[in-house]
């Protein structure tokens, strides 16, 4: 169990170097970075700068692809995804703040594939909460976190980026 | 058979009687009131303690559907319903199939009702052939065969000349004409009162003028011909004023109103509940108030049910595509009692509007408990509460907007011709 504030900047440095290694190891060609709204976008902006990627940053909104739409309804404040380039045949670096059950990533993958067939999708997350309900893993992780049953973690941003852990009301 | 009805509050407006006393029936007639007659031995005793004993109700407008529309109702089912509602005389509309425009049909209906024996059925005859509003029907022959009055229902006349001639002919033979006043063109395609609610719901309205124009025309022609005339089931406050004015001028016209128009308004149609699709339509609060006032002042002297039973399909469609009418025999009494609860009328006045007043309008020797008169009697508990369900309605028509509601006032026994035709 961890409490208090974790340093996002420190984690980002680690993630940037691991991503560089990933790009080399998998021989990714001019990778396209896409952040999942909202936390993933803030992180992707930082990583995009640190890694000095050529292709512009994309934004993915997965609200319409969620699998719990019948319970929570549709969020009326949805803005559309913005993908500046075609995804067909591209190597994609998908960025999100937290991976927990894996459902958000599943929705993101479904949406990405509606846009076209990428060459590869590589997943980068800041935190892994290790409570999978689907067989999905991240390729680069900032850190793992085991939360108590009544605890929540939240990424605040966009500047500065900080993590807070608090008790559920 | 000798019957004693004991300990009830006997209310007979015709005799101005209202007291707790005993009623003795013998050989189909009221034998005595009050002290037991010498040598009277009751074969049957009805304990009416805590209950009202009044003349059997006379319903001025009902539809029994037989002959011709028996999937909606039969003389057997509907007279059974009447008996359960304390109604012993039913005036029925001529729109059967075939229409009541021949002696044969008039006699058929009365014979059938007599065979079944639950209630007296008095047919109204068609005023014009086929109710088409063009040619006179054989009024005199129909009257000889038992038609108590003549009407063209809400169907239009070809022109005023034809109407005038029909009235003159009826007047010749001193026959009673019943008007259900409605101007055909103004009411065409309408299914509810023309006002704010119909505007909001996008339903075709029947304007007030549809009734008042026809009431006006009929009053003028009644005055000219001197025919005996009655206005059935008024729905507008304006109509009440017109009839009041005519009566003040000396014209002896009478009027009745259906109980639902005294209690409900067009706002009930919100939500498109087809149970409220009625003709005449439920109108505005102002109209309801005017009708209620008309009852108090006596311009309207009688209340009826306007009973129209329907098969379920008739009401299962978008509002305008449904058939109008509600099943009302078994709710007539408890709904009418609400007028007493609401302090609009005293109980004896209410009973008058359901018994001696209809009898007077029809020129019938009925609607009274005077010694020697036919023993048509209703015994009811004014405080008993019951919930209207499809199962406890004896009518074939379950089409009432009061389904599921709890009403107060329940008939415990009904006698016709000194026979018990209903007992709870």
């Amino acid at each position, binding site marked *: 169990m961890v409490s208090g504030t974790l340093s996002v900047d420190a984690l980002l440095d680690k993630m940037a170097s691991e991503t560089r290694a990933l790009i080399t190891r998998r021989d990714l060609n001019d990778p396209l970075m896409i952040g999942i709204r909202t936390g993933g976008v803030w992180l992707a902006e930082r990583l995009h700068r640190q890694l000095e990627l050529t292709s512009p940053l994309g934004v993915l909104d997965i609200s319409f692809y969620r699998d719990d739409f019948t319970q929570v309804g549709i969020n*009326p404040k949805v803005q559309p995804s913005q993908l500046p380039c075609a995804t067909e045949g591209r190597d994609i670096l998908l960025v999100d703040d937290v991976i927990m059950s894996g459902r958000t990533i599943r929705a993101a993958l479904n949406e990405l594939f509606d846009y076209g067939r990428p060459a590869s999708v590589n997943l980068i997350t800041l935190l892994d909460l290790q409570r999978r309900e689907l067989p999905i893993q991240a390729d680069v992780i900032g850190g793992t976190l085991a939360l108590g049953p009544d605890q929540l973690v939240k990424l605040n941003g966009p500047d500065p980026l900080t993590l807070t852990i608090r008790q559920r009301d | 058979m000798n019957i004693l009805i004991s300990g009830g509050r006997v209310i007979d407006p015709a005799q101005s009687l209202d007291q707790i006393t005993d009623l003795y029936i013998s050989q189909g007639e009221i034998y005595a009131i009050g002290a037991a007659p010498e040598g009277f031995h009751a074969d049957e005793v009805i304990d009416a303690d805590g209950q009202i004993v009044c003349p059997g109700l006379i319903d001025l407008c009902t539809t029994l559907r037989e002959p011709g529309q028996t999937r909606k109702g039969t003389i057997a089912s509907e007279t059974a319903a009447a008996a359960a509602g304390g109604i012993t005389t039913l005036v029925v509309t001529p729109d059967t199939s075939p229409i009541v425009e021949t002696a044969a049909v008039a006699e058929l209906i009365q014979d059938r009702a007599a065979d079944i024996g639950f209630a007296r059925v008095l047919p109204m005859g068609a005023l014009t052939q086929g109710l088409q509003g063009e040619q006179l029907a054989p009024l005199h022959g129909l009257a000889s065969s038992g038609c108590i009055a003549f009407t063209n229902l809400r169907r239009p006349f070809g022109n005023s000349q034809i109407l005038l001639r029909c009235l003159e002919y009826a007047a010749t033979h001193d026959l009673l004409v019943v008007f259900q006043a409605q101007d055909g063109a103004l009411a065409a395609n309408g299914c509810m009162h023309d006002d704010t609610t119909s505007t909001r719901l996008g339903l075709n309205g029947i304007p007030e003028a549809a009734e008042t124009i026809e009431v006006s025309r009929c009053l003028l022609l009644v005055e000219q011909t001197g025919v005996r005339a009655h206005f059935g089931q008024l729905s507008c406050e304006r109509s009440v004023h017109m009839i009041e004015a005519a009566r003040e001028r000396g014209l002896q016209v009478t009027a009745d109103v259906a109980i639902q128009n005294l209690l409900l308004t067009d706002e009930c149609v919100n939500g498109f*509940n087809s149970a409220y699709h009625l003709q005449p339509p439920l109108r505005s609060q102002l109209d309801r108030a005017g009708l209620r006032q008309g009852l108090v002042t006596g311009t309207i002297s009688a209340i009826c049910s306007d009973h129209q039973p329907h098969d379920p399909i008739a009401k*299962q*469609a978008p*509002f*305008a595509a449904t058939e109008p009418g509600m099943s009302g025999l078994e709710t007539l009494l408890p709904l009418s009692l609400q007028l007493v609860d609401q302090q609009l009328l005293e109980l004896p006045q209410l009973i008058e509007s359901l018994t001696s007043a209809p009898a007077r309008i029809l020129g019938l020797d009925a609607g009274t408990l005077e010694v020697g008169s036919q023993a048509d009697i209703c015994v009811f508990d004014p405080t008993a509460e019951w919930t209207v369900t499809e199962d406890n309605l004896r009518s074939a028509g379950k089409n009432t907007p009061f389904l599921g509601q709890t009403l107060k006032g329940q008939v415990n026994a009904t006698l016709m011709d000194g026979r018990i035709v209903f007992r709870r």
Partner: protein
Amino acid sequence: MFEANDPNSIQLTADGQLRHFLTTEGLPRELLIEILDTADSFVDMGEQQVKKVPLLRGKTVANLFFENSTRTLSTFELAAKRLSADVLNLNINTSSTKKGETLKDTLMTLQAMHSDMFVVRHADSGAAHFIAQHVTPNVAVINAGDGRHAHPTQAMLDMLTIRRHKGDFAPLKVAIVGDILHSRVARSQIHALRTLGVDEIRVIAPKTLLPRHIEALGVKVYTEMASGLRDVDVIMMLRLQKERMQSALLPSEAEFYKLYGLNRDKLAYAKPDAVVMHPGPINRGVEIESEVADGPRSLILDQVTNGIAVRMAVMSKAMSGQLSQRAATDNESREA
């Protein structure tokens, strides 16, 4: 004595979610705004490469049009397909068989085929209510126009169009012009405009085309254009059907056009930045001059685009509400 039926008792779930969309009347302002916001995101999506979302994947939407309409039918069809639903189109002619029976039987048959949503257009006012309340309460019902009663999706796409061009509803003066008497569109527009809180709603028509007591709906009545259009921000024209000339309601199309047709001269009575709308299809030279219909102030084509987005928004909200209602009912019966 007896309470009038609240239209919302049937349209909303116990916790206020939309489950049938039958009329704009009586819906809370927040809900109308949610529909507009959701529709906004679908409009933006319509301009993207990927126009489909999987919100209604696996669901069957049956379009039941008892009144012919190619336009409305095709926008609903497109909206359902963009939500990834399976679509069934049924154009039903009611002239042959007895009306009430056909409607109920048709619907029971469709229910047996497990449709999740009905989009219904019918010539009788209250038809959508009848279906939602008495025939198939478990199927989400979207009213595509019933008699003269309501056309709520048209009203909402009109509201979206107004909002996208004018922003805030509060200061707007809106005029509805034409055959108000026979118009379900006008009624739905009036309810929506009132709920959204515009400054003033006006109706402009000859008396023969105005319903009695229309003021009770919260509008000001004008019978001529010069005063009716003064200071108006939004002009909503209505269709005039040819039949009206046959029933002593109007003498001729020419006279109607002269008095109520929107041409450039009459447009000048309104504010300089006033916009012009029409639900379509337009009768050029009867309701509106070509130059105005095709001109810079006309939002008629935007209305069409917005129509698809609004229908997508309404359909997905109603489906979600209906599914959560079903889940709640299932839970109740399990617990019982």
